[in-house]
């Protein structure tokens, strides 16, 4: 699992590559929270296009970040182009809570 982060305006951009499961999600969660809170950010974009596996641990991770963003008065969105990932997001009701975009640019609102 590779995670890289970037900051654009008050957005934390998180790019994930590899397999997001229980084993890998612990570290991802720590890195995201560290960047988000240390930099006093508001919004988050999770770029999942590089994921080739995700199970319910990913749902828990995304749900947790959604709550963090809401607490800070911000919002979270997903970048994904995979029908497999979207099926899992939909099943868990996450698509009702956040939007899915095709690119990072679209996910950042001016």
């Amino acid at each position, binding site marked *: 699992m590779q995670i890289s982060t970037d900051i654009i305006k008050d957005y934390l951009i998180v790019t994930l590559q590899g*397999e997001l*499961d*229980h*084993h890998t999600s612990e570290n991802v*969660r720590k890195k995201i929270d560290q960047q988000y809170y240390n930099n006093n950010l508001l919004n988050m974009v999770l770029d999942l296009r590089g994921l080739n*596996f*995700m*199970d*319910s*641990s990913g*749902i*828990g*991770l995304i*749900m*947790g970040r959604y709550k963090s963003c809401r607490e800070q008065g911000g919002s979270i969105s997903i970048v994904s182009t995979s029908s*497999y990932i979207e099926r*899992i997001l939909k*099943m*868990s009701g996450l698509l009702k809570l956040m939007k899915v975009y095709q690119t990072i640019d679209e996910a950042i609102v001016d």
Partner: protein
Amino acid sequence: MVEKNSMRLEFLSKSNNESFARVVVAAFASQLDPTLEELSDVKTAVSEAVTNAIIHGYEYGEGVVIVEAIIENNRIEISIEDRGNGIADIDKAMEPFYTSKPNLERSGMGFTVMETFMDELSVESHVGKGTKVKMAKNFKSLSDKE
């Protein structure tokens, strides 16, 4: 038609074995020539059950997880077993969004994912003895794919 074949895998309840287990079962299932989507479904379901054994069955303690699979014709049957805590109320455990560990950011969607991605799912469990999750999936036959 694929002749009957079976496998058995036993490993310690460590979280880095989650990917190991799902990759092994997927490689075994490949003998049935499934589609990529069918293979992802199996991988995800196995990952859910193995993760549950580690998090809930053994609560991060040391134990053994046993994965067995049988393939025949176009069908795979998989069982995932732990000798851990067991489940007191199986019906409740299988409800979508039910989790006994919300503080660990679990979503309670594991059984729902298994149910959705596989064709059959059943759970046997005894408190203090352990849990066995059985699931099966019928792959579309080759002629259907074309």
